[in-house]
């Protein structure tokens, strides 16, 4: 036990060290590298906190896709970006406020009620009626379906916001931010070998999400990461933003979710309710469509606004 505690303390210290490094590193590039390592270690913490579903998402999104995004941004920053640091007064004030917030939160953590309140028993008790084994999926797709539905719409909306940053003359073009100018042979090889494996992992995650850790968000993230790899290597090209096909793919998940939700008025007695007999196939259909839409949305979010029309 004390060994585990020591290991956890080491992990926490390492994470804090990387966070400090991310904050004080001299170059933006160095800070981003520090942040990616940080994200990887945080994923380990999630495992230690018995939240494997979160760990999967964190590893793929938090350090993986976010890292790619930030690296791309750091590479395009102006060299001589020597913006004035704020004065001592502001830094001191900010330091005091931040330290006070951190100290207050630390106190709150130590004073949390024992035992902690939980919904785990209620969440697991009704799980069999849905034909599910993974309570996290139950929360995402049934008990709090509305959050997941709105969340999948948020992704579409973020993409619209991103695309709105294009130049007028580029509208209808392809997003080209990701493509490496000169992909090396190793990258191309990686992009040829990894995606089939990733595809399997992604589909597996979606499929097992019903009983084991995994699900639409996790599966979609892995699929997106694989697609992004092929985009970077130049093996595939992102679709034009004007196309109706890609837009249909993007809304397929939320639209099906909404449609089944509305059908719930008649089938299950309430909006977003599942009929007791057919809950499982309906949930799997929603998860499949969501996985696809999320993968496409995440990939396109990384690909940036449409670039020059060729």
């Amino acid at each position: 036990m004390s060994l585990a505690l020591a290991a956890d303390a080491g992990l926490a210290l390492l994470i804090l060290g990387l966070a400090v490094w991310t904050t004080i590193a001299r170059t933006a590039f160095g800070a981003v590298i520090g942040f990616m390592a940080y994200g990887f270690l945080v994923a380990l913490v999630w495992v230690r906190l018995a939240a494997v579903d979160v760990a999967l998402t964190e590893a793929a999104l938090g350090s993986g896709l976010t890292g790619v995004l930030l690296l791309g941004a750091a590479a395009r920053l102006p060299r001589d970006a020597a913006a004035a640091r704020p004065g001592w007064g502001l830094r001191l004030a900010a330091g005091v406020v931040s330290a006070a917030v951190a100290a207050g939160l630390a106190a709150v953590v130590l004073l949390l009620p024992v035992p902690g309140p939980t919904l785990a028993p209620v969440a697991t008790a009704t799980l069999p009626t849905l034909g599910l084994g993974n309570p996290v999926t139950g929360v995402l797709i049934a008990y709090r379906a509305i959050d997941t539905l709105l969340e999948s719409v948020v992704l579409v909306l973020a993409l619209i916001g991103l695309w709105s940053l294009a130049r007028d003359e580029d509208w209808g073009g392809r997003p080209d931010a990701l493509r490496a100018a000169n992909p090396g042979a190793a990258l191309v090889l990686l992009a040829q070998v990894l995606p089939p494996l990733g595809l399997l992992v992604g589909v597996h995650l979606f499929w097992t999400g019903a009983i084991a850790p995994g699900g639409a968000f996790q599966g979609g993230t892995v699929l997106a990461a694989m697609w992004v790899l092929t985009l970077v290597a130049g093996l595939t090209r992102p679709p034009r933003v004007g196309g109706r096909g890609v837009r249909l793919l993007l809304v397929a998940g939320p639209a099906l979710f909404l449609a089944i939700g509305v059908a719930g008025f008649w089938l299950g007695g309430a909006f977003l309710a599942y009929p007791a007999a057919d809950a499982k196939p309906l949930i799997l259909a929603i998860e499949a469509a969501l996985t696809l839409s999320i993968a496409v949305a995440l990939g396109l979010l990384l690909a940036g606004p449409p670039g020059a029309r060729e």
Partner: protein
Amino acid sequence: MDSLFTLTPPAAWGAPLLVTALMLPVAALMLAFVLGGRHAERVVLATLPIGLGVAVAIAAAVLHQGATLHYDLGGWAPPLGVSLHADGLSATLLLTTAVVLCAVGLYARADFRVPSGAREARAPLAFWTLLLAVWAGLNAVFLGQDLFNLYVALELLTFAAVPLVCLRGSPQTIAAALRYLLFALLGSVLYLLGGALFYGAYGTLDIALLSARLASGDPIAPAALAAAALMTAGLLAKTALFPLHLWLPPAHAGAPAAGSAVLSALVVKASFFLILRLWFDVMPDPLTHLAAQVLATLGAAAILFGGILALRQARLKMLIAYSTLAQIGYLFLVFPLVASPAAAPALDLVQAPGAWTGGVLQLVSHAFAKAAMFMAAGLIAGALGHDQVRGLGGLGRVLPMTVFAFALAGLSLMGLPPSGGFAAKWLLLSAAIETGQWWWTLVMLAGGLLTGGYLFRVLAPALSTRGPPLTLVKPVERSRELVVLGLALCSVVLGLVPLSSFGLVQIGRLGATGIGLP
């Protein structure tokens, strides 16, 4: 205590309407995005009247039953499930949102038309879909009863509002949008932290359950205190209350006029609404009394500071944006006036407690007036080719209807009779005097003078008949002027309606402050 809250009437008619109000803009958003091109505008213009109808129906249902509407999504009751909730205030805000958005939709057609020859263009597609997203986000905020569901709603709103700021794509608007985004994200993450701490202390995110557990008589958990403070700080950043206001003026002034109208009239009200719910529906009274003083002090500072800065602006849209800072300040005076121990007896009376009605009236009349002002400013800027306050001399002769609409909206902002703003400020002033908090009246009166001052700077030259006649760069469509005038009239007419007809805003409120409950 718990049993009190499970006694919601089982089959109140109209509850499924809440789902419609939430999902109609979401469905329209997806449809507009997939169809694209010129269809996006058509989808919006077809959806707006339906949404208005739904909002009217919800208000009618709440008014008819005299009770809060409640809907458990998926049939899962809280704390496991998420529910929707509409009391009189929610219904009023849904209705206000629908009316303002209908006007904005009609007004924006001329600005966001797909040019002939193109199948689709960037700005129109973005604007129409973002408008639907703003609507979805607002309705989700006004209907939400679960703190995390409300977090998703806030994010929906942020992701819709930020791109609206920089639709024009100029460097200034990009910077304004980025600053807005950073403030909004900070606000969201603090709000989320608050939600997590509430859950850690009480094991639920449902507002009614939380309120019951907080009122159970046990000492309040430290986590709940930290949660309320963090949530308030985050929501204040999103509402742009002084001193967290820096992002607002460039963002609201930089957006296209139709976008400015939506942002200033509606979007900042969403986070204010959540502060109201947090302190009146979640936290117990004694704490609310304390927080009320802090919030109102910041509000008073905002009234004075915003007014003074508005006086000094060279551009009309910046002036209107600074005016929003000041008018938001008034909203925060509601806290000590409603939460005052001296106001408590009034809550037992059937008649409306004035401060609450005054606050809601201020919120609604400002929404109409500010949307009208920004859209009038858009017409003026389009017609003159600039929006320098200095160059408005003689405007009334060339654009009489626009200037008249601007003046009407100004009447409401200043709080002059007969207008919604007058009724609102009158109720707030009376409440301040009745509860013995006369110092807030000084702030309100000073704010009124400042408002008069900055509007005089616009209206005096605009209405003057001297000087050479102005030449217009571009004619102004009469239909757009009528839309603006219609909204300005809404803000005035609110003041002509007898106060007793505002019973709607009280429904579900008796006891919300904890006093009316047996």
